[in-house]
């Protein structure tokens, strides 16, 4: 039986599945239910400074994109940070940590971007006995208009500055939560590291309008007929989060910086993928908000079963293993040739591969053979683009086959060629200039 326990910045948790800072971790009663359900840790929903709590709208805060059968694919929200008094949250954090000393309990914090505000709150947070703090530099709505959240996260200098303050004002590990609403995630990550942050977590939610109500002619959700952009999350954002995670994991400036990955993690496989790209823990929110806390059982069981099958005894055994295989386009092998192949026994003759290739790609799949409805790849036209593989409704019916023997009828060149990439390709002006110098 694989050991799923993690030690992240010295914070121990029985499994890598933490609940992200969000409504599920807003209060003691929820967090206790989560721990009873088996979650390894939580990041307590973002605390604000002392004084009047923030005010949320009393109306729709969520919008969604649905798939068939109303599966929730993407989700956005216009929630703000906690609207409960700071003292209540701090008291409950302390109570929960006492009841569950074996679980990770990290407090998310967001206060104005001045030194005194951070100096005032951090000792009080530390006094709860929690395991760490996460600086919320991510929320794209509401708080950002007040100079917090993503307004800070979009300015690397601010990230560095606040991280440095926090490291000075608390002994707790400091995690910087990054906003994806920037052009290059590496810059805020590098800033966090420069400021002394112990880790980054990402992604926070993405600026979004999930839909427009065509009757009201207003973005949904709308409050009294008017709407605003919200933060996008859920399964739909996972590819973006994976990419950003990989960028930080392989950037020489941040390589080795611990990462707590967030973004559309819905199943054990999603978690394994983020861990393979270097994440030490994963944070989940939308899946729990969609299905309840019980989903962690599937995640724990699935990850454990998969690790056993692969012979991984601990998370560290496979963590980051996919990072070396993430590269830039220019290093891809331009001499690698693959062609699609359709398994006629599995083919149900829907013809989608044909029309997709015919209308939008390379006209490389037949519709008829000898006058009969039949879909066969034409090697002389196939560039191995994978479109047919991805749109075929039958799993494994169409596969890409790596060719190494014989000649490519499309190019006339032998399939077997030594590795060669764009950096040395004759069509690359950069390569030519380099050779000339």
């Amino acid at each position: 039986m694989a050991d799923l326990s993690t030690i992240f910045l010295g914070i121990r948790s029985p499994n890598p599945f933490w609940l992200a800072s969000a409504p599920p971790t807003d209060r003691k009663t929820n967090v206790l239910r989560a721990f009873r359900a088996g979650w390894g840790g939580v990041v307590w929903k973002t605390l604000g400074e002392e004084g009047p709590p923030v005010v949320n709208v009393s109306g729709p805060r969520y919008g969604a994109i649905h798939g068939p059968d109303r599966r929730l694919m993407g989700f956005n929200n216009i929630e703000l940070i906690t609207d409960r008094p700071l003292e209540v949250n701090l008291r409950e954090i302390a109570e929960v940590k006492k009841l569950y000393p074996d679980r990770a309990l990290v407090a998310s914090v967001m206060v104005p971007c001045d030194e005194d505000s951070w100096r005032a709150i951090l000792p009080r947070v530390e006094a709860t006995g929690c395991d760490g703090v996460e600086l919320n530099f991510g929320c794209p709505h509401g708080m950002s208009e007040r100079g917090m959240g993503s307004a800070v996260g979009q300015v690397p200098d601010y990230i560095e500055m606040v991280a440095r303050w926090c490291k000075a004002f608390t002994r707790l590990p400091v995690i910087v939560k990054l906003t994806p609403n920037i052009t290059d995630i590496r810059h805020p990550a590098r800033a966090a590291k420069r400021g002394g942050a112990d880790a980054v977590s990402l992604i926070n939610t993405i600026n979004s309008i999930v839909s427009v109500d065509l009757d009201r002619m207003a973005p949904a959700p709308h409050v009294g007929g008017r709407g605003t952009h919200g933060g996008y999350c859920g399964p739909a954002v996972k590819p973006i989060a994976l990419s950003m995670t990989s960028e930080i994991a392989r950037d020489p400036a941040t390589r080795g910086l611990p990462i707590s990955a967030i973004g559309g993690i819905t199943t054990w496989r999603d978690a394994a993928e983020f861990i393979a790209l270097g994440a030490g823990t994963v944070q989940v929110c939308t899946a729990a908000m969609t299905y309840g806390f019980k989903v962690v059982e599937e995640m724990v069981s699935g990850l454990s079963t998969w690790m056993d099958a692969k012979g991984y005894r601990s998370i560290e055994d496979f963590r980051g293993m996919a990072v070396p295989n993430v590269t830039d386009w220019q290093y891809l092998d331009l001499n690698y040739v693959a062609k699609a192949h359709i398994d006629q026994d599995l083919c149900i003759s829907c013809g989608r591969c044909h029309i997709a290739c015919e209308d939008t790609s390379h006209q490389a799949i037949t519709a008829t053979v000898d006058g009969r409805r039949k879909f066969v790849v034409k090697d002389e036209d196939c560039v191995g683009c994978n479109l047919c593989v991805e749109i075929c409704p039958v799993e494994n019916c169409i596969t890409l086959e790596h060719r190494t023997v014989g000649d490519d009828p499309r190019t006339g060149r032998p399939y077997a060629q030594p590795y060669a990439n764009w950096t040395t390709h004759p069509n690359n002006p950069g390569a030519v200039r380099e050779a000339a110098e």
Partner: protein
Amino acid sequence: MASITTDGVTGGRLTAEDYARNFGDLSPPLTRHEALVEAERCYFCYDAPCVQSCPTGIDVPLFIRQIAKGNPLGAAETILSANIMGGMCARVCPTEQLCEEACVREHAEGKPVRIGLLQRHATDAMMAASAASGTHPFGRAPASGRSVAVVGAGPAGLAAAHRLATLGHAVTVYDARPKGGGLNEYGIAAYKAAGGFAQAELDFILGVGGIRLEPGVRLGADVTLDGLRAEHDAVFLGLGLGGANALAGADAQSNVVDALGFIEGLRQAADKAAVPVGRRVVVIGGGMTAVDAAVQSRRLGAEEVTIAYRRGVADMKASGWERDLAKTEGVVIRPWMNPAGFEARDGRVSAALFDHRGPDGLGEPERVALPADLVLLAIGQTYAGAPGPEVLAFDGGRIRVDAERRTTLPGVWAGGDCVAGGSDLTVSAVEDGKRAALAIDAHLRHVTPGLKGAA
């Protein structure tokens, strides 16, 4: 008070609630959510096999995608532009032998997209919207100044009339019966067209305008083909099959009746409790009419109902779905039963006799008597009446037509069950009517007005 065990032929065997339930909708419509989920199962195939297998060539993937994306009225337009009786066909088509059999999901997992129910979902939405707004989805071309006579207000005739009307022609539909609709109104099981659907669809079709329905007018008696040819620029014959096949000895028997007449009586009865049925019913035949008659006999409260068919089960024209329906309703299907006469008691039939040739049809014939107080004959219909072979050419007892549904008589087209080579399905009749209308339209546009009846 009669019950299911009352001997003889009588009505009132069940409670009022039983009758209401038994003659309500056989397959309830999909809810909106069910329709969306089912529609999402469609793969939107290229050159889709379901389209190929639909006699009217409805663009099935397109209309299903329209449903899936929240546009049922657009879906209905897609359906109705190919098949104006898409609503009835959604209810009565043997989809398991047509579009759904061809569905790649049937091939992949033995569970086709439920195309028929989706078609009903869309067409019901259109019928409701049309009825609510008093509008019709199809407009009419400018008046052509031409008129066409359509004889027979069944599926073929109405499809022809509707298409001709949209093309700008003035159409007069003559039908011998008091109501239009043909088999849809008179010959289909009540639970397949519940809620007065046949009449509603007729109203919807006539809603396009430019169609005058003349019921109670019989060709050969009240009007003549020559008269129609003289009066109109073209004639379409959608006559159906008026005659029932004869079975030796049946005429002499009391309570041995034509199944279509039985179904008609049932369809037209305001109170199903008033429709008499036997305690033991034997239906002779193997097609859809046999199943409709047998199942409805059960639903009227017959205690024992048997379908006796002269060949094997696999030879039956009734589809597997129909046969399963019969079995689920408690009807016994007995193959290899060759009709051999009747027994009577007190002047009424008491048993139907058969020569039974064993479970595989290969044995020596053995005389079997199936006790019956009502025998329904569903052994097929024949063409009857005018015009006859002296006027136009026939093949196998039905009117000969070419690919454009043109008869051998100039200016006269025909379609539906009365023509040779058809499959005796509503959907095929609709296609005949549609094709004939297009051919008539092309013909009229190439003929100088004033030469009525000229070919």
